[in-house]
C-alpha cells in the first residue's frame, strides 16, 4: 500500500507541476477550441450557466448572456433564446431576460428555455421550442471548451449549428489560472465521455 501510494503521490506531483508551471494547459485548451462561424441565423441560442440565490449570474452565465446579446445587437438574428433553469429559487433565464431588456433587446425578440438542467436537455427543449417555428439555423453561444459537446447534441436534435463561442481566458499566465484551465479541460473531457457512453439515438 505504501509503495503504491508513494508512486501515485509522485505522479500527482509531476502532473501538478506540469499543469501549474508549463504552458501545456493553455495549448490543450487552444487545441480544443472550436473557431467561431458567425453568420446570419434564424436564432441565437445562449446556453445556461448558473445563478445564485441573490440573483447574480455566474461568470460563465454572464459571459454567455452578454455574448448572445452582442450578437443580437450585431443583427445576426432576429431571435435571442436564453436558457437557464431555476436554482436556489431563482430562474436564471428570468435574470438573463431582465439583463437583455436593459441592454436594449426587445421582449418580442426573446424566448426562454426555463427547465433544462443539462446541455442535452437544453438541446431537446430548444428543438421543441424552435423547430415548430421553422428555426433550424442557429448561432450557438457557450464557452469554448463546452462547444464541441454542445454542438453535437444540438446537431443530433435537428439544428444546423454555427458555433459562436464566448471570449474566455484560455491562455492563463498564472499557476492558478492554468490549474483552472486544466480543471475545466478535465471536467469537459469527462462530460464528453459521459455523453458518448450515454448517447441517445
Amino acid at each position, binding site marked *: *500500500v*505504501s509503495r*503504491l*501510494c*508513494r*508512486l*501515485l*503521490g*509522485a*505522479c*500527482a*506531483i509531476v502532473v501538478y507541476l506540469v499543469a501549474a*508551471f508549463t504552458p501545456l494547459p493553455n495549448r490543450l485548451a487552444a487545441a480544443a477550441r472550436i473557431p467561431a462561424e458567425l453568420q446570419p441565423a434564424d436564432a441565437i441560442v445562449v446556453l445556461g450557466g448558473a445563478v445564485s440565490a441573490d440573483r447574480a449570474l455566474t461568470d460563465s452565465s454572464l459571459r454567455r448572456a452578454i455574448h448572445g446579446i452582442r450578437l443580437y445587437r450585431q443583427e445576426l438574428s432576429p431571435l435571442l433564446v436564453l436558457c437557464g433553469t431555476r436554482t436556489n429559487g431563482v430562474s436564471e433565464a428570468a435574470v438573463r431576460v431582465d439583463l437583455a431588456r436593459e441592454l436594449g433587446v426587445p421582449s418580442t425578440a426573446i424566448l426562454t428555455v426555463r427547465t433544462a*438542467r443539462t446541455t442535452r436537455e437544453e438541446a431537446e427543449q430548444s428543438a421543441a421550442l424552435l423547430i415548430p417555428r421553422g428555426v433550424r439555423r442557429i448561432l450557438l453561444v457557450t464557452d469554448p471548451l463546452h462547444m464541441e459537446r454542445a454542438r453535437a447534441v444540438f446537431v443530433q436534435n435537428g439544428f444546423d449549428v454555427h458555433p459562436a463561442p464566448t471570449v474566455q481566458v484560455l491562455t492563463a*499566465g*498564472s*499557476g492558478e489560472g492554468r490549474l483552472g484551465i486544466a*480543471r475545466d479541460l478535465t*471536467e469537459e473531457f469527462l*462530460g464528453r465521455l*459521459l455523453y458518448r457512453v450515454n448517447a441517445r439515438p
Partner: protein
Amino acid sequence: VLRIFVFSLIGVTSLGAFALGANALGLRPQRIGPALLDMLEVVGATVAFAAINVVLGAGAILTLRSLTPWFLPLYLAADTSLLVFSLFQALTFCAWRAYERRQGGAR
C-alpha cells in the same frame, strides 16, 4: 517570473524549515529522505481518496437522477471541498497506519 518567484519562495521556506529542524529541534538531517517518502505517501493517499470520492459521488448522482425525480448537477462531485476532505482522510489514514506500525501491528 512566476516560476522563479514560486520556486524561490518555496526553496527559502523549505531551507529555513530544514535549518530550524536540524539545529533547533535536533532532527537528524539523514531522516529527510524517509520524511519525503512519507509526504509522497500522503499525497498519493489524497489522490486515491479524491478519485474514490469523485467516482462514488458521480455514481450516486447518476443513480439518483435515473431512479428518482431529484436532479443534482454532476459538478457537485467535482467540488473543491472534496479535495480538502480527501486530504483530511489521507492524513488520518496515513497517521493511523504509522501509529500502528510503531506499535508493531500494521502490515
